[in-house]
Each structure stands twice: as structure tokens, then as C-alpha cells.
């Protein structure tokens, strides 16, 4: 039988699986066929698991017994920095090329309990450092809307898998936009939850105080279904919390209009693509017609702040990869030689760059000027956001200042950092944010997807799902 994968959502698949319209095995087989056709060209998956059909069979047995969970039998792709016991997890790095996870990440344990079918591990920028998946040690992932262009990153493989119909949904991780930016570039929905809403146990750390695991899917509703399964505090992650523990501040009485704040200074500056601005204006108009009121707000450019903390924490977190206990090991003439060679050959360019920059901003002479100042500015920004969200319900921006660029076009690392201008702020203050497709722009006859991003106060995922669903209801095809 043929399953209409293009229009399939988790919600529809749930009904079809429970109603025996198709089986989990048939669904998994449909995705396997698609992967065989497309993955070689797109490079979304670094590995397609060999036991997909067995997993699906187990799911079918559970369904036959009358069990039903939101994600039972749903085929999901997993970013290569999330551990699944007994399977390779490499963070797209040579230094972990053959590393096999010895335990399940908490999110994976939760998905296993639901009877999810894991399709494979998806490509990414090495150790989640980048914005285009070009920093993978195992080749770039291509954008299905134009294969000469990047998928975005760092969760590029996950976004492409969902966008090209090679998975029904996927997990990614977001440190400064790594779920939202590739989702926008590939025309899918990506959620970065409140910091701590989803356990980080079993996620390879990039910037521990920014990192979040979150869902990538075709619809806002699908991201909500996954979020509700993976969220929750966890004894294995001391920074995890119950999202419900945040008292979501109601700005004004629920019957009056919700207020969206737009940082127009930030959006109207140079470097933001004209068509992105046009598309954004159109989105704002649509939101007004949906009954939201729009106000102008001020937001600072936080890229410098973001990257100083990112370098510092990355440098510290990647210190554990030394070839001693696991991963790539190169023999030198002594122990120090082992370290130098293993780390020198194991890490890619961007990882090395950030490790050195982190060592620099943390060094005794520069600590106060860079890292110390950045931490104080971060506290000030958190305070600013608290005050902001006492007056408005959402902050709205484009997800990315530019659409997906040509592979290899951005050779200067700084130019790639600047793409995080709208996304990194949510990670600095820890608020949730969602990227929703907002239409397309045409370049050289190709339709490239664009996205807009809503931010809400801590614990405000519910209101993000609500506004996201309303907004996607008025989207038009190119």
C-alpha cells in the first residue's frame, strides 16, 4: 500500500495506526524506501539503523494489545549528539567516529517507553558548533528546496529529514538557534523549549547553560505532542524543571487582545535581507488580522555576549574528549603526546577555533573584560526580559536575517555567527521560542522557505503552540 507521507502528521498517523489503516511496519517501510531514494544526495542521516522494521514490529505488537501512546509506532530521527544505548553517537566528529553510547539519554528513554521507531542518527555541525551543517566531519547536508544550498544548522540533518519526508519528526538540540534556523531554512516547525524544561542527560554538552533538546516537525501540533512526551524534571539533570512550575504571567485579562512586541530597530538594520523584511511585514499584518496587537520594543544585539559565553563553555566541555577512555586515540611518544595528537587530529576546524577562543576569554588577563562582563550583561538582559514580558505576551522576529545560503559561500566564521542575531537571545535568557514557516522567497527560480520566530516568557510553551497554530492556519503554498 502507499502512504501519503507528504501530508502525513503525527496526529494523522496516530489515527491511522490505531485504526489499523496501516501498520507501524508499513509506515517504517515507507520511510525506508524514501531514505533509499533520497538520503545519498541529501546526507540527512549519518546512519540509518538496520533494525527499523524490528522496532516497528514491536510497536505493532503493542498496538495489537490495545496499547496507545501519542508516539507509539511513530518514526523519528535523532540528532547525532543524543545518546541511544548500544548505538553510535558521534556528534559528527572524527574524535567520536566509533563511540558507542553506554546509556540512554533521558529523552530517548521516554521515547522508548512510548514505542517510538528510531530511524537513524542525523547529520549536524560537529559538536553543535555552526549554523549550516557544513562543519560536519562527514559531509554537508543539502537543503531539499535547493540542493546547492545549506540546510541550516546545527540540527540540519534533523530538519532535512522532516522536510524531505525521510522522517515524520525529529529531535534536535538548540544552543543559539540550532533547531529554529534549520527549521526555517527547510520550511518546518522547530521548538526550543524553556531552559531546563527537557532533561539534558545524555545530550553531548556544547554550551551547558544554553543547550536545550527540542522537536522538529511539520506542524506546531506535532511539536507539541513530542514536547509533552519529552518534557519534565529529571534527577539526572539538576538544571531540569517542571515547566508548569513557572507561573506564566498574564499581561492583561484573557479576553483582551494579546500583545506582540517587535524589535524594529534590530530588524530594520543593514544585513537583513529585503525579502525577509517584506515577508516579515506580511506576517505581522496577518497576525494583526488574527486579532493581535503589535507594539514596538527595543532589544539589544546580543551576538557578542552570546559567543563569549559559548566559547568559554565549549572550551571547557570539549576538554573531556582526549582519546583516553573512548573515541579516537592517537599514539604519541608520551601521555601528553597522546593528548596533542588525538585532539589535534580528532577535532575539526570550528571546534579547534572555539576551544582556543574559549581558553582566551577565560584566561586570567582577559577573564573580567570578556567572560565576567558577558555574565553580568546576561543577568542584566534577563532582568530586561522580565520587565518586557510584564507588558507584552510575545516577542516576534524573523527566525534568520537571510535565507539558506549557497554551500561554501560563507567562508568567514564571523559572518556565520551574525546569522544568530534573532535566535541567540532566547538561549541567553532561557525563554522558549518557536520557528514557524512564514512563506517563501524566490531566488534563481527556486522557492526558499522563510520562518518567523515567537518568543514567550519562561514556561510559556502553551501560548507558543496556541499562536503558532493560529499563524500556520493562514499560510499559503508558493
Amino acid at each position, binding site marked *: 500500500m502507499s502512504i501519503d507521507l507528504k501530508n502525513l502528521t503525527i496526529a494523522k498517523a496516530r489515527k491511522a495506526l490505531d485504526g489499523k489503516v496501516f501498520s507501524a511496519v508499513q509506515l517504517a517501510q515507507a520511510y525506508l524506501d524514501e531514505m533509499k531514494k533520497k538520503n545519498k544526495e541529501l546526507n540527512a542521516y549519518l546512519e540509518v539503523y538496520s533494525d527499523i522494521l524490528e522496532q516497528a514490529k514491536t510497536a505493532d505488537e503493542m498496538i495489537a494489545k490495545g496499547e496507545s501512546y501519542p508516539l507509539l509506532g511513530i518514526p523519528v530521527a535523532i540528532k547525532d549528539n543524543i545518546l541511544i*544505548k*548500544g548505538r553510535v553517537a558521534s556528534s559528527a566528529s572524527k574524535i567520536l567516529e*566509533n*563511540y*558507542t*553510547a*553506554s*546509556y540512554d539519554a533521558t529523552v530517548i*528513554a521516554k521515547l522508548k517507553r512510548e514505542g517510538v521507531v528510531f530511524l537513524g542518527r542525523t547529520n549536524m555541525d560537529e559538536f553543535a558548533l555552526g549554523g549550516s551543517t557544513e562543519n560536519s566531519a562527514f559531509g554537508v547536508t543539502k537543503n531539499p528546496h535547493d540542493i546547492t544550498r545549506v540546510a541550516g544548522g546545527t540540527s540540519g540533518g534533523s530538519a532535512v529529514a522532516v522536510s524531505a519526508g525521510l522522517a515524520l519528526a525529529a529531535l534536535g538540540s538548540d544552543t543559539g538557534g540550532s533547531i529554529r534556523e534549520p527549521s526555517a531554512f527547510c520550511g518546518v516547525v522547530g521548538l526550543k523549549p524553556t531552559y531546563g524544561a527537557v532533561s539534558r542527560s545524555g545530550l553531548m554538552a556544547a554550551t551547558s547553560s544554553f543547550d536545550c533538546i527540542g522537536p522538529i516537525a511539520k506542524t506546531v501540533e506535532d511539536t507539541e505532542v513530542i514536547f509533552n512526551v519529552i518534557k519534565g524534571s529529571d*534527577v539526572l539533570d*539538576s538544571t531540569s524543571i517542571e515547566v508548569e512550575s513557572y507561573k506564566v504571567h498574564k499581561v492583561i485579562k484573557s479576553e483582551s487582545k494579546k500583545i506582540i512586541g517587535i524589535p524594529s530597530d534590530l530588524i530594520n538594520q543593514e544585513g537583513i535581507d529585503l525579502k525577509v523584511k517584506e515577508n516579515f511585514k506580511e506576517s505581522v499584518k496577518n497576525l494583526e488580522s488574527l486579532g493581535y496587537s503589535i507594539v514596538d520594543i527595543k532589544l*539589544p544585539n546580543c*551576538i*557578542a*555576549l552570546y*559567543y*563569549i559565553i559559548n566559547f568559554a563553555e565549549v*572550551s571547557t566541555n570539549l*576538554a573531556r574528549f*582526549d*582519546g*583516553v*577512555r*573512548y573515541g579516537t*586515540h592517537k599514539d604519541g611518544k*608520551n*601521555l*601528553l603526546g*597522546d*593528548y*596533542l*595528537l588525538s*585532539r*589535534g*587530529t580528532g*577535532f575539526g576546524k570550528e571546534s*579547534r*577555533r572555539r*576551544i*582556543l*577562543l574559549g*581558553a*582566551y*576569554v577565560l*584566561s586570567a588577563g582577559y577573564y573580567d*573584560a*570578556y567572560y*565576567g*562582563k*558577558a*555574565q*553580568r*550583561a546576561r*543577568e*542584566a538582559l534577563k*532582568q530586561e526580559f522580565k520587565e518586557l514580558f510584564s507588558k507584552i505576551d510575545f516577542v516576534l522576529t524573523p527566525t534568520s536575517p537571510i535565507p539558506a545560503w549557497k554551500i561554501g559561500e560563507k567562508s*568567514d*566564521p*564571523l559572518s556565520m*555567527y551574525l546569522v544568530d542575531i534573532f535566535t541567540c537571545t532566547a538561549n541567553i535568557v532561557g525563554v522558549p521560542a518557536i520557528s514557524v514557516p512564514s512563506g517563501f522567497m524566490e531566488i534563481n527560480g527556486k522557492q526558499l522557505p522563510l520562518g518567523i520566530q515567537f518568543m514567550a516568557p519562561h514556561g510559556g510553551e502553551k501560548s507558543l503552540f496556541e499562536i503558532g497554530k493560529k499563524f500556520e492556519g493562514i499560510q499559503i503554498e508558493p
Partner: protein
Amino acid sequence: MNITDVENLANLARIELSEVEKKELLSDMKGILDYVKQIEEVNLPKAGFDRPVKARLWHANNVWREDKLEPRDFSKELILEQFPDKQDGFLKVKKIL
């Protein structure tokens, strides 16, 4: 910043670099540090934000759990399997002194 700084940082970070790589990194790092330097100009508007970070972090909460043993899902076999070198179930490394 000069090439000696790059060498020192690479040594601290235990990363071996070729001469070409050092030069590339120096030029990249200069550009990036010039950019992130703008953090100096950020005004900290409210009283209290000029205090050292540690003093502010004292307001953070501790997260406690009961002091009891809970089984964890680690696979000893998988951990042992991945040691680059081992003997009698121990990890083997080169001598340190």
C-alpha cells in the same frame, strides 16, 4: 594577539597544530575577538550588575536529592569495550611520571 599567543593557547588546550593552521587561526581569532570586544561598551543599567558574577550567583538555588543509591542504566561492557587499551578490566594509559 600574535602567533605565540595561538601556540600558548593550543598548548593549554592540548591541541597540536601545523604552522599553516596556526596562521589561519590567528587571523580568524583576531577578527572574532575584535567583534566580541563590543561587550566592553554594553552599559549595565541597574545597580548591582557591576558586582562580581559569583556574588550574584549566590541567589541561585541548590538542587538536592535524597542520599540513596539508585541503579543507573550504564553498560559496563560497553564502557570497557571502548577503552583504547586495557588490562584485567582496567583502563591502561602511558606512565605519568
